[in-house]
């Protein structure tokens, strides 16, 4: 099924024409942003140099750090009175990245969500429970408005209280859910414990963290759904950037809205189909916060083969990151954020190690930190108090519950050169 069949199935030539037209509009829009005026001038790039889509490779990259430096509104290309919504995404050292939307941006975004949900067969006859955070995180409101656009019955259940979530699925006859794959697994297990049947469910939309095909099989068996992978990031509106079709062999990225490149993350060279690298996107329909060659940090490749559904070129499921960002229960975490928190707590040292595990299908982050020599009183309860303090401050900064181990001074590894402070043990998902 198609939400917007004409656009979704444009011929390659028509699509390229549309992309070039929109790229030029976007470039005119980015020149309203001080960062780009300076960047283009410094690098000697002129808009007239961009005559074809391939010319985009002459343009400079935009990195997440650039967006952080622009905090809060440095990347807005429109006056604030045209920005109708703001979301944020976690930053590395406390300050988040701000993303803004005009009314047209919200329409574009919800259109993309509507395309994705229609693509997997959802209609206005479906009852949709949206089990993700509804706050500053883009996943909640993003899916909410897309589903409403289709006319689905939307239950904005947000996160938490799994038993209540299960009761609502049963009582409201929910047919489709959206959440992180790890939360879906948790939901399935709680339902099993409650001996609750979830037989109205047929579709599961899962995203915001990487998940394997074996986890897909497990979720489908336990929840009785067909599971689809959802990809997006706040800087590119939020969820909805790319999505699996019923073939479930790669994700369709919406080329009329996103100009896609895959690059070698080290050299910056553009790679061809089938070559794994970092996804770089120039959004083509963003008004409030247009971007040029945004480095997503996500590792994927473009898939040469066409798809039975007739939509354009797919990208492979995301296999990792080209930087040190961790995704824990759908939340982005940079090791530098942890370091920043520890620096402000005198009772502990600045060395740390992060261990990430998947326990009962949920991500668990454990942080080892050394007690500071001068702050050991000899009393166990003082140690426990320090441990609690570190956990609370990490929780406040990361919006994530962590386990903190207090270890002996000098016992953690010291690194010369690039530190390897993260041990991700989630390999066997």
């Amino acid at each position, binding site marked *: 099924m198609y939400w917007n069949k004409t656009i979704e199935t444009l011929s390659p030539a028509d699509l390229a024409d549309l992309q070039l037209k929109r790229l030029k509009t976007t470039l005119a829009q980015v020149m309203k942003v001080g960062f780009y005026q300076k960047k283009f001038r410094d690098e000697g790039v002129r808009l007239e140099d961009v005559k074809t889509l391939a010319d985009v490779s002459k343009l400079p990259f935009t990195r997440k750090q650039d967006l952080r430096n622009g905090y809060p509104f440095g990347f807005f290309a429109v006056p604030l009175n045209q920005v109708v919504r703001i979301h944020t995404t976690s930053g590395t050292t406390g300050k988040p990245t701000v993303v803004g939307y005009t009314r047209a941006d919200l329409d574009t975004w919800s259109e993309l969500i509507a395309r994705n949900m229609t693509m997997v067969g959802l209609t206005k006859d479906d009852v949709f429970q949206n089990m993700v955070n509804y706050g500053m995180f883009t996943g909640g409101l993003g899916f909410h408005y897309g589903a409403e656009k289709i006319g689905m019955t939307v239950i904005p259940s947000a996160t938490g209280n799994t038993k209540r979530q299960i009761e609502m699925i049963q009582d409201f006859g929910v047919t489709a859910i959206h959440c992180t794959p790890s939360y879906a697994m948790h939901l399935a297990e709680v339902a099993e414990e409650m001996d609750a049947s979830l037989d109205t469910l047929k579709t599961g939309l899962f995203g915001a963290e990487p998940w394997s095909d074996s986890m897909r099989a497990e979720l489908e068996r336990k929840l009785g759904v067909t599971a689809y992978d959802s990809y997006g990031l706040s800087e590119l509106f939020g969820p909805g950037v790319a999505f699996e079709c019923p073939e479930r062999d790669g994700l369709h990225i919406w080329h009329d809205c996103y100009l896609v490149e895959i690059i070698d993350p080290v050299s910056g060279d553009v790679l061809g189909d089938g070559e794994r690298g970092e996804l770089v996107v120039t959004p083509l329909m963003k008004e409030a916060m247009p971007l040029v060659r945004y480095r997503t940090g996500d590792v994927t490749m473009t898939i040469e083969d066409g798809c039975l559904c007739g939509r354009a070129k797919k990208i492979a499921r995301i296999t990792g990151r080209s930087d040190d960002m961790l995704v824990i229960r759908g939340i982005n975490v940079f090791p530098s954020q942890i370091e920043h928190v520890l620096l402000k707590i005198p009772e502990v040292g600045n060395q740390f190690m992060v261990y990430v595990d998947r326990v009962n299908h949920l991500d668990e982050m454990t942080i080892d930190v050394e007690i500071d020599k001068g702050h*050991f*009183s*000899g009393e166990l309860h003082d140690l426990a108090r320090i441990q609690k303090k570190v956990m609370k401050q990490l929780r406040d900064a990361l919006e994530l519950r962590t386990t903190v181990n*207090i270890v*002996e001074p000098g016992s953690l590894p010291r690194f010369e050169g690039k530190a390897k402070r993260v041990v991700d043990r989630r390999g066997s998902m």
Partner: protein
Amino acid sequence: MTETRNYIIKQISVFSENRPGRLAAIAHALEEEKINILAFSIAEANGFGVVRALVDHPKKAYDKLTSIGFNVAFTDVIAVKMRDEPGGLYEIAKILGDAKINIEYSYAYSGKEGAVLILRVDNAPAAITGILTGGGTLIETSVFH
């Protein structure tokens, strides 16, 4: 109050992760310095612990353990003699209770000169006075060097 000071004993408290071999490392270091451990206990919480020990040379033990990287602190405790026979603990516990002394933690040993109860209390001078008034016998600081 000068006399209560004579009964305050320096326990060494050593921070230790809860993993195999840590106690051995502490004990071996003390052996190397010919320090005798009179009593010790281990308190544990959430993956880490504190090894508490009464040793004959607290300062020497502190220096040695610190030099090999341990995090060590002195903690004031008091030590009450007990009769090493049934009812011995009750006698002392009753004195403590009657004197309204609150114990933070405690451990005991039974050695050559009888049984000893080591106490960490929130107000040591008050506890010392209470125990002495109640007829208890405290070990003097001078026993330790």
